């Protein structure tokens, strides 16, 4: 189950849509497993766990506020970094081109 946490993090972009897609994939996987398995409890348990997770994600029961904040806060980090990089690049260009924008 330790691998579920990063998987959920990856679902942040559009959790419900991805959950639906994963659910469809799971149905197919389950059919394959049902046909091929000979009572492998471990695989069955894993699938059940994944389905439980997908149920919660698809039903929108995850904490939307905290997740949305984490997502937005990371986005802000990237945006400010890009803006400050552009500012520094601009100041450097101005310094050596003699252009004064003030």
């Amino acid at each position: 189950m330790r691998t579920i946490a990063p998987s959920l993090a990856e679902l942040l972009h559009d959790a419900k849509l991805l959950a639906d897609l994963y659910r469809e994939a799971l149905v197919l996987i389950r059919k394959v497993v049902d046909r091929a398995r000979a009572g492998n409890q471990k695989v069955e348990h894993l699938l059940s766990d994944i389905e439980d997770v997908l149920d919660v994600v698809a039903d929108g029961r995850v904490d939307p506020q905290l997740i949305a904040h984490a997502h937005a806060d990371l986005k802000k980090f990237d945006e400010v970094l890009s803006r400050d990089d552009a500012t520094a690049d601009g100041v450097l260009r101005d310094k050596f081109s003699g252009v004064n924008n003030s």
Partner: protein
Amino acid sequence: MKRAIVTLFVLCAYVTLGYAAVSIPTGCSGPSQQHVVERAGSVATTALAAVNAARDNFLEWNSAHELDIVDHATSMEEGTRNLAEYRERRQVVTAAFQAAYGAIAAAAALLPLAEAGKVTQVMLLDALSEVATAIEAIRGAVDAIMEKKT
């Protein structure tokens, strides 16, 4: 810029303590699942505030540092090269922030699962542990880049 490092240290310690506050009682099988989930949610929220504070401090330092690089450049080529080198080294910091935000989101996603009894308290604590580790990684990365500079 020592302020940023100190702030990070304090916030990191706070989140780590919060993690401990959740984990210690669960070992005694005393508190209810609901109580553990509430505490875990509180720790995750605190962690987000901590990472945001660290982010704001780092962004402030980053902006000043980039302008400092430009200020000390004696040619366009030198400035461009030094900025590029700094941004290359900065990737460790940005990766640490990305990991921390991802870990917080993942922990938040596990909360309702834990509340519903679909994941164990141990799994929830693992997720919080990863948050604490990610915050520690931010501190290490920020310390390293601030001390080295360019």
